[in-house]
């Protein structure tokens, strides 16, 4: 550990470990409760919130326009054609769902590993998961063109046509993976929020607030028996969400890996997709956390330690992604398959080669050389920029996988190119507006940092064993 850049006077540094603190010193149960409930229960919504929500909402309107036109005209308004029958829709789907995965990683996997630092960022990371899944799930659904007619081959239900879905298809597996993921994420998120909703109910001043939060809190009263069952349920949900999150991106990678397209048909896809998902997801956590902690003055609770740790996770998963890229090329060479070899060459030096180099720069060359530095990892501006760059790079990764493989497959006579239309761009940018608008609503209406979990890591939360032994005797 490099200690030269730490000043001993800084109150945010824990003198025992020399690390940044997870929570600023001096907080009590009451101060944390006050600080976090006030953000939601204040009658004065900050002007910046209205501005941001209006902006995000207008961008989301663009999505509405694009989707309406799509339903009227059909998927022909998109740039998809032969041979690129999968265009922006699948790229955006994989990108969004990958972003969602960091939320589950933080809330489930880090809970199982007893990483207490995660406590303050897990609620909004989970919200990020939910809203990302909403955006992701929209793409395959609208890609069917007329989703209301797609239900009978997506969901197994008895219908008048006596038709049943084809369960051997990876696209069917997707339906189950993504719908399970969305459901479990909602349950995990909501169960995690119940004690805090109880706090909101008890702190709300307005009758309406008390009623709404009271209904949502389900009558939570903090009974010790309830807490013990609650903890068991949380652990079980975390234990279930962990294999689930790994399976979701694995199943999505099967959409590609099961096909026989050069560049898709490799066994490296599942782990490489999962690592890429977590890489971009942590980048999105930073993209969201950095402005939020600044705007709501939450530097005490989302400290540089959290940002630093997110940077470290990105560094690790970024290297797995880099390994995936190298394996792709090594596979093309070692397979001695000329189509695979051509695909790799075409990806890097072909007409769409520019997208490959964007991806190499933004996923590997820039972040993986600079994230090593502790000083940079604790520099908020740098982290914000790197998070945006990585998210761009991860989008291009999916673009490269989908488009370069499809434009030039086995038969040169069927080669083609791909050009997205304005409707493609409007739909994609529109989902970013929807995601941001939902996030604005979330931070305004619900406690974005789990108070009950923050209380557990405060110094006053520990039982004083000595006192217990001493006084328990008399």
């Amino acid at each position, binding site marked *: 550990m490099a200690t030269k850049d730490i000043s001993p006077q800084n109150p945010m540094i824990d003198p025992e470990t020399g690390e940044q603190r997870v929570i600023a010193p001096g907080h009590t149960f009451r101060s944390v409760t006050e600080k976090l409930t006030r953000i939601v229960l204040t009658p004065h919504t900050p002007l910046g919130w209205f501005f941001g929500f209006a902006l995000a909402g207008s961008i989301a309107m663009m999505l509405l326009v694009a989707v309406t036109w799509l339903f009227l005209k059909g998927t022909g308004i998109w740039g998809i054609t032969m041979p690129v029958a999968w265009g922006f829709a699948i790229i955006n789907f994989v990108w969004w769902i990958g972003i969602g995965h960091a939320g589950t990683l933080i809330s489930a996997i880090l809970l199982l590993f007893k990483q207490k630092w995660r406590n303050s960022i897990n609620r909004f990371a989970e919200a990020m998961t939910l809203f990302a899944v909403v955006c992701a799930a929209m793409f395959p659904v609208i890609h069917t063109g007329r989703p209301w007619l797609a239900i009978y081959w997506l969901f197994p239900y008895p219908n008048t046509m006596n038709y049943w879905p084809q369960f051997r298809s990876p696209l069917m597996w997707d339906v189950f993976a993504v719908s399970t993921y969305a459901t479990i994420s909602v349950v995990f998120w909501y169960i995690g929020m119940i004690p805090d909703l109880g706090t909101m109910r008890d702190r709300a001043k307005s009758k309406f607030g008390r009623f709404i939060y009271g209904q949502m809190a389900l009558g939570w009263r*903090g009974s010790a028996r309830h807490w013990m069952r609650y903890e068991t*349920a949380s652990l079980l949900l975390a234990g*279930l969400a962990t294999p689930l999150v790994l399976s979701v991106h694995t199943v999505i990678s099967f959409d590609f890996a099961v096909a026989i397209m050069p560049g898709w048909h490799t066994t490296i896809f599942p782990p490489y997709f999962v690592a890429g998902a977590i890489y971009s997801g942590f980048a999105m956590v930073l993209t969201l956390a950095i402005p939020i902690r600044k705007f709501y003055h939450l530097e005490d609770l989302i400290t540089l330690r959290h940002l630093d740790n997110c940077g470290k996770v990105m560094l690790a998963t970024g290297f797995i992604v880099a390994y995936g890229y190298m394996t792709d090329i090594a596979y093309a060479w070692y397979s001695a398959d000329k189509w695979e070899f051509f695909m790799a060459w075409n990806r890097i030096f072909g007409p769409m080669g520019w997208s490959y180099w964007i991806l190499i720069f933004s996923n590997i060359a820039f972040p993986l050389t600079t994230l090593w530095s502790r000083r940079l990892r604790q520099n908020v501006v740098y982290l914000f920029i790197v998070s945006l760059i990585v998210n761009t790079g991860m989008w291009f990764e999916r673009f490269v996988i989908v488009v370069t493989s499809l434009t030039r497959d086995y038969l040169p006579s069927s080669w083609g190119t791909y050009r997205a239309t304005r409707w493609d761009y409007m739909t994609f940018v529109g989902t970013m507006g929807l995601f941001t608008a939902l996030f604005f609503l979330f931070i305004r209406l619900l406690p974005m940092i789990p108070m009950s979990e923050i209380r557990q890591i405060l110094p006053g939360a520990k039982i004083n064993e000595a006192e217990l032994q001493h006084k328990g005797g008399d």
Partner: protein
Amino acid sequence: MPVREGIYGLLAEFDTPTELVMAAKASYGAGYRRMDCYTPYPVEEAAEAMGFDEPKEKGVSRVCLLGGILGGLAMFTLESWVSIWAYPLNIAGRGKFSWVAFIIPAYEWTILWAGLCAGFGMLALNRLPAPYHPLFNAPNFRNGATSDKFFLCLEADDPRFSVTDTRSLLESLHPVSVIEVEH
């Protein structure tokens, strides 16, 4: 539910979790069983002090396991039935009972139903949702139980309960206050 009247119990308020755990131990030691602690975050020691052992109860885990098994079996059975009898598809001569492909949706449903059962099972075992509870009548309960205070309630259902003796026991445990809670 019939309307109940009279006293629900005596509610003692404490400032620290340590005081609460000591009080819970003392009350349990004095023979009280119908009691509960209320804390703003999970305090395992409080549950132990009143003789509640969740790992031994195993309610939530059992419901979760059952849900997982049934969910997985249900999906696997559905897939087999659809692919063999209801709507057999012959694509490139692949076998009808291609169970390897069926594992994936069955796996997802195992997780889906195990998770739903863990979440809703926990709520059901806790008798939630319960929008009304006598404790919400106590003036200090809602101000503290979900933010920074620790409560012990000895309930009137307990055979040892008496308004005077129980109150003097609680008052000997250094609480901030002891109040009567009405139904």
